[in-house]
């Protein structure tokens, strides 16, 4: 106990938090209060008066969260008590910001409104999460169909490139559309991929962790070792070529690397994987104009030629202006100018929140994400079953990595990509996928504790 490393300390610290549905219920009350406060502040700041309109944006998601809470109470009583309130906090904050941007759009005389849709999509996503909890009470059922999940993921990834239904937005081919309904299948694919990797790696753990021949003290991996990583690297490049989006490609490849590393315990995979990833990204930036333009905008966002270029750094720079305007405590909800940032309701909602909630808000939001990720890793850490361990790790890592890529992109740490900010950004497929991740993590945490008790 006296010598505890940081990596050990964090899960130990988090163990101190009680997990129960009652704890969750108390937190949900708090979160609903925060949402009401945010909506009220927005109405007061934008129109100087409060109206009953806010019930429309507050009540349905709150009711949905309570329904989900009820379902958890009924089927997975011992599931983690923090995940639902944390995810719901972010989701409601996103709705509030989208509502605030809608008000600005109405003032401007515009027609592009998103909040109403986001409310119902959030409810739908939480309902789906409840269904996932009900259906997948025992996560081991997922282990039965790894190849099916893998195949489904591949199909979903290829769909946006398909004729008729495929859609390209802002240079990235990430959407499919049927009539008015559009969908981003890549979001669902990340869950299916995590299930596939977990199932595949658990069955192939042995061979993959065998050490190859040694030459000059270095471990030279055998072809068998290199096979899967090369295959998946090529697949990621294919995703990059087809979907024209670096973020999605890195997200899947990163997920693969971390899961194969965890399963085999071999750092070699991470090392060579990172080299391949960087090489691939650099080569892609040379070969494909759309990736190269993103790199230029990233490296020199303030250069006039990038700022004025079509698809250049204008959006990024406007986002930075907004965040700088927010300063430490923020302009206050409803009191900034996030409407000046293109796509503030989706790709750049992080910058919009940074402007109105300031550095304090950004830290809080990042801390919430990190807490969700830590809870997920804790489940991975404590679960006895290897498949569940891997799945919990994969799901929480993919969530954390996505936040890193999106927030890093918005803040100029990484090149900008087409990924969405989990729970916050307007968009149904992302909400659905991320709530499904929360649902799966719940189920996994419940099954973990159930085994201990049995």
């Amino acid at each position: 106990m006296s010598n505890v490393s940081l990596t050990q300390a964090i899960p130990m610290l988090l163990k101190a938090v009680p997990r129960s549905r009652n704890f969750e219920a108390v937190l949900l009350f708090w979160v609903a209060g925060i949402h009401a406060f945010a909506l009220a502040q927005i109405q007061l700041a934008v129109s100087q008066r409060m109206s009953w309109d806010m019930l429309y944006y507050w009540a349905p998601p709150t009711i949905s969260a309570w329904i989900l809470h009820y379902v958890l109470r009924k089927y997975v009583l011992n599931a983690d008590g923090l995940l639902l309130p944390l995810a719901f906090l972010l989701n409601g904050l996103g709705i509030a910001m989208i509502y605030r941007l809608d008000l600005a759009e109405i003032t401007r005389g515009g027609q592009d409104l998103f909040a109403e849709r986001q409310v119902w999509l959030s409810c739908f996503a939480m309902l789906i999460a409840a269904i996932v909890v009900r259906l997948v009470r025992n996560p081991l059922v997922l282990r039965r169909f790894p190849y099916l999940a893998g195949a489904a993921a591949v199909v979903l990834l290829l769909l946006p490139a398909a004729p008729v239904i495929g859609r390209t937005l802002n240079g990235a081919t990430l959407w499919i559309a049927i009539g008015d309904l559009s969908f981003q299948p890549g979001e669902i694919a990340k869950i299916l991929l995590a299930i596939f990797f977990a199932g595949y790696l658990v069955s192939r753990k042995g061979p993959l962790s065998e050490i190859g021949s040694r030459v000059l003290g270095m471990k030279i991996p055998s072809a068998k070792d290199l096979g899967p990583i090369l295959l998946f690297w090529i697949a990621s490049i294919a995703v990059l070529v087809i979907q024209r989006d670096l973020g999605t490609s890195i997200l899947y490849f990163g997920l693969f690397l971390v899961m194969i590393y965890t399963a085999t315990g071999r750092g070699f995979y991470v090392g060579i994987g990172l080299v391949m990833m960087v090489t691939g990204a650099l080569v892609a930036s040379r070969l494909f104009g759309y990736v190269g333009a993103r790199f230029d905008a990233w490296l020199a966002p303030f250069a006039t030629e990038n700022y004025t270029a079509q698809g250049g750094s204008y959006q990024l720079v406007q986002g930075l202006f907004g965040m700088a305007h927010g300063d430490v405590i923020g302009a206050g909800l409803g009191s900034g100018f996030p409407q000046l940032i293109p796509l503030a309701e989706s790709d750049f909602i992080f910058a919009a929140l940074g402007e109105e909630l300031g550095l304090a808000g950004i830290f809080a939001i990042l801390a919430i994400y990190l807490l969700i990720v830590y809870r997920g890793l804790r489940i991975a850490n404590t679960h006895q079953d290897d498949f569940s361990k891997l799945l919990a790790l994969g799901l929480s890592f993919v969530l954390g990595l996505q936040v890193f890529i999106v927030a890093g992109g918005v803040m100029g740490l990484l090149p900008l990509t087409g990924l969405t900010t989990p729970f916050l950004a307007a968009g149904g497929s992302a909400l659905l996928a991320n709530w499904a991740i929360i649902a799966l993590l719940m189920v996994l945490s419940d099954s973990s504790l159930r085994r201990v008790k049995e």
Partner: protein
Amino acid sequence: MNRQVRRVGLALTVMFIALFAIASSIQVVRTESLYQDSRNVRASYETYKTQRGSILVGETEVVTSVAVNDQYRFLRSYDSVLYSAVAGYFSIFTGSSGIERSMNSLLAGQSSAQFFEQINALLDGTPVTGAAIELSLDPAVQRAAWDALGGRKGAVVALDPTTGRILAMVSKPTFDANLMAGHEYDPVNQAYRDYLDDPDKPLVNRAIGGDLYPPGSVFKLVVAAAALESGRYSTTTTFENLDRYRLPGTSTIIQNSSNNTCGEGALVTLEQALIRSCNIPFAMLAVDLGQDRIRAMAELMGFGDQIAIPLSVTPSVYPIGLELSQLALTGFGQFDVRVSPLQMAMTTAAIANQGVIMKPQLVDQVVASNLNVLSKPEPAIFSSPMSRETAGLLTRMMVDSVGYGAATNAAIPQVAVAGKTGTAENGPDDPFTLWFTGFAPAESPRVVVTVVVEDGGGIGQNGTGNQIAAPIAKAVMKAALNR
């Protein structure tokens, strides 16, 4: 496998720490540079949605923000063109000027002094209310200056030499700030363009900025002060009394404005030369004294300084690297000497206030919307360019100048007025720039007044400072003394 899970956790933690770091860098370290990027419109947007503070003269609000029912919420309203030059304009589309510009952050409620009000506004979602600026201007003096200048082009500055408070500041022609305060782009832009294209430059506050003026004979005060302070000259130092003088190293001949000698006699004293405002003795004095001493005195008085009152004052210029012939010309304020009327008022204030210039100031106090006084500039010494004795000698000469010399039109019955006129040449055929600078009462000065009139007051090369500028100053001094 748990070891790997912990390592993945550590990797994610590092990634998030990178996000925390870059967010801190953007929102703390780089805020200022990002905020000031010319492509960032937030800085200007920010100021529209607040109720800007009023600008007051005496008890009267001369500039206010009126609530209106549009997206900008408040319309800036300017009561009178009397204060346009000082108050300036505030436009959503074309920028701002004057107090509206230099005190913008306080007026808009965005200064760091208004932190708690910002927090309040943040919590209840109401817009911040800006602070009110109380100007030092005196409405009666300002009105007198405005009326006395009449339809002429030029400027008037009046200040209290003992405190530096500016009592009047008029610049003509001027502009109607309401035309640029509107919320519709086209009329505002049209009005702005018209003002910009006007050759008379109505948007320029001539009292402190623009192209500055050649000072002519009022600059003799600076030269005389430098001479007396050098210890090498007294009021009785004599110069050869010539009616024509050839500039050293050239064949150019200059004359006194009388086209004659400076009074009777073969010799003329420094005192008489100043009272009668003769050019030849001062040309000789400048050559004898040397440019370094003159420049040193000018700089002590504020030449070359970036002065903020808080409007920024264009620095006055005494040129460097002068040839002797040019140096001689600067002795009576010609060649490339360029001054602002405020600079000449400060020079005069040094003489009036026993050698000490008080920092000129347009703002009495800044009052937050909760009636807290946010700032109240105390009188402060700007510089002490001359001794009390020198100031006394110059005062006596200036009183005589008004009494029987070159500035008689500024005389007020029962009051000892000290004054100096100037009639500066611009080009061979261009109209003169006419000056008067002085103060009253001479024994315990309460007001310094500097007047400049462009284009010879409309009568070409026929007008003199005494004829056109002195009566204007007289009217302003009377108004100030009657308070």
